[in-house]
């Protein structure tokens, strides 16, 4: 049934047995409309059960299966074979997200990624008691943050960022997008607290508008745009505190 045979190269590594990461190849049947994830599952289910990867929803909303495919960070479930290869016999490469500690095969340790997320106080901070009904927010105010709320925290952006590679302590696009999402929420009163965190040597100013995050984002969020807005906000708030 399958229209072509593809060569799958996977960067494998199990620290329990292996000295270091190494590449392994597999022959896999594929259709143009198969997702990159389904090829991996074919390997895991039919060829080698020791292959380890995270997966869940398989349609791009849970953010489990971000990895480096053909040299770029993508969600395996959201990219199709036809967008990766030209035809029969071609090769697709899979590696874990760059610049992250590897737990096993394609699975990375995300504890540092989520530490950064927690650092930016990613929750609504409000002064005063909550009203009886919902807080009002105009469609325009809502539009300010809507793009940012699409984030699924898959980590593709942060691990695509050369600033993260150079300095793993860099907060990274995902965490700072969260900071943007709450700081620019018209209901939020916590801007100062959050800006204190992102306005740091390992924070906002290491965003050099490289756009790797935008390219990697499986939800097509214009991350750079929102981080620029956050920079302007941080800069003006610094100016007003000094004044």
């Amino acid at each position: 049934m399958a229209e072509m045979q593809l060569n799958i190269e996977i960067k494998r590594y199990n620290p329990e047995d292996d000295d270091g990461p190494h590449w392994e190849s597999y022959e896999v049947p594929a259709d143009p409309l198969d997702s990159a994830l389904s090829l991996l599952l074919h390997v895991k289910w039919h060829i080698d059960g020791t292959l380890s990867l995270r997966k869940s929803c398989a349609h791009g909303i849970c953010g489990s299966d971000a990895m480096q495919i053909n040299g770029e960070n993508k969600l395996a479930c959201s990219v199709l074979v036809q967008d990766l290869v030209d035809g029969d016999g071609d090769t697709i490469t899979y590696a874990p997200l760059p610049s992250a500690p590897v737990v096993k095969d394609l699975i990375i340790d995300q504890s540092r990624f989520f530490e950064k997320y927690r650092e930016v106080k990613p929750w609504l901070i409000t002064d005063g008691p909550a009203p009886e009904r919902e807080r009002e927010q105009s469609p325009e105010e809502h539009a300010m943050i809507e793009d940012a709320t699409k984030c699924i925290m898959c980590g593709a952006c942060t691990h695509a960022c050369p600033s993260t590679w150079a300095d793993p302590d860099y907060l990274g696009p995902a965490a700072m997008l969260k900071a943007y999402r709450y700081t620019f929420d018209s209901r939020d009163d916590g801007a100062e607290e959050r800006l204190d965190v992102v306005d740091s040597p390992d924070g906002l100013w290491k965003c050099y508008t490289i756009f790797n995050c935008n390219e990697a984002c499986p939800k097509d969020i214009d991350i750079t745009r929102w981080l620029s807005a956050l920079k302007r906000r941080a800069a003006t708030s610094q100016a007003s505190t000094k004044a």
Partner: protein
Amino acid sequence: MAVDTKERPSAPQQTDASAEQEGRFQSYRIRTGMFAWMMHRLTGVGLVVYLIVHIWGLTALTDPETFNALIAKYHSPIFKVGEFALLVAVAYHAMNGLRLVLIDFLGWSPKQKKLFWTLGGVTAVIIAVGGWPSIYALGEWLLGPGSMPTLFL
């Protein structure tokens, strides 16, 4: 009981091999944004080096002999090549810098690719027009006087 959300019950052991994954530089597909950034850094560092040399050179202003010798040096072929490279670096760094300013200050992120190609075109024109005298002079020197077309000059 104290509640701590930060610490995992048991963190994975960091091994040397897993640290290997964390190189400062990663091989990654280069798209326009990353290309622009890499070139910006490269030209930027180059220009700082040039700036140091250039300012150092200014000390020659105090002494006629040194200054004249320096200017004479500037007219040697190797410096003509350097001059051209300088123009390329300055033009690129300036135009890409403009792109970054537009993105950061005016929120032109959605237009970043268009900006990249447009300003790339402008840079090419600047290099061609501004660099022509150097190319002309080099050509004259290499191929003999009168061998270069006298465009713009």
